[in-house]
């Protein structure tokens, strides 16, 4: 397939080499910008939280990572009601 590409590109050899380089850079850009960021949550390096449905999943799994406000990793049971949070007992210094 690379041979085919080389034959299809127009121009002299150095010009073709330059076009190959540009194509390669374009491929790298697409990979870094779009492909790898979507692939990365499937790798285990992002699992740093406790609570089961972590931010990513190395086991190749289940819930799609939902970035944004809803992506809390806490279970509902552990989410404190606002009223409880707002009980400020002052600071133990």
């Amino acid at each position, binding site marked *: *397939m*690379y*041979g085919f590409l080389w034959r299809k590109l127009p121009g002299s050899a150095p010009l073709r080499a330059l076009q190959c380089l540009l194509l390669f850079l374009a491929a*790298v850009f697409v*990979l*870094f910008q779009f492909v*790898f960021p979507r*692939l*990365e*949550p499937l*790798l*285990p*390096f*992002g*699992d*740093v*939280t*406790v*609570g*089961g449905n*972590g*931010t*990513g*999943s*190395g086991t190749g799994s289940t819930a799609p*990572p*939902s*970035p*944004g*406000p809803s*992506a*809390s*990793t*806490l*279970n509902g049971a*552990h*989410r*404190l009601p*606002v009223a409880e*949070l*707002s*009980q*400020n*007992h*002052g*600071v*133990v*210094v």
Partner: protein
Amino acid sequence: MGRLVARTLVELCITVGALIVLLTCYLLYWTNIAADQAMAGELSRLQQQWNQSRVTAAPTPAPSASIGAAPSPTPSAFAYPPDQAFAVLSIPRFGRDWKKPIIEGTGVGDLQKGIGHYAGTAEPGQVGNFALAGHRRTWGNPFNDFPLLRPGDRIYIDDGRFWYVYRLDRTPLRTLPTDIGVLDPVPPESGYTQPGSYLTLTTCDPAWGHSHRLIEWGRLVSVTPVSAGEPQGLSG
């Protein structure tokens, strides 16, 4: 014909190899570059926001009252806006200049631009458990040195109004990812028995794996207004 198949196969192998090398470059270098940039951006945005609010909402300073009023950082009338930095974390054990923004939330995007605050856990200084999560590897490796944390280490949090200082009480605990009890207001395994203002840090273990989590707990030891300067041990 056989030649064409063989050549195509070889080119395919080369392509896959190149993709793996590129993915490694992405994980080892690019995520760190992107994260460092994002964190620096969050820090400066936060600083700007604080400077503005100090200019606009700096009425007559009441120095004597401000210390007495210090322990009421009016929490949770409204929660922190999600996915935004609201405080700065400093951990001298990780380096003199180690300073990261704390982002509300622990989603994928949150952890890529700072240390994530588990939504729903306490705010800094509050009674309860102020729980944070950070990447150990990739995306800036913020919690790379997590196993080096020791009892007595101090964790500094600046939310623009107060400096909160927490003191760690143990060496890191290794536990399972499902162990959400570590985020309880009084975590069962922490050794704490009374309600108090606690801090929890979580990251993954082993460094490149996801089978376990490392947990650290600390307790609040002091709160000082930002106007009083950096707390001891951080500036010195």
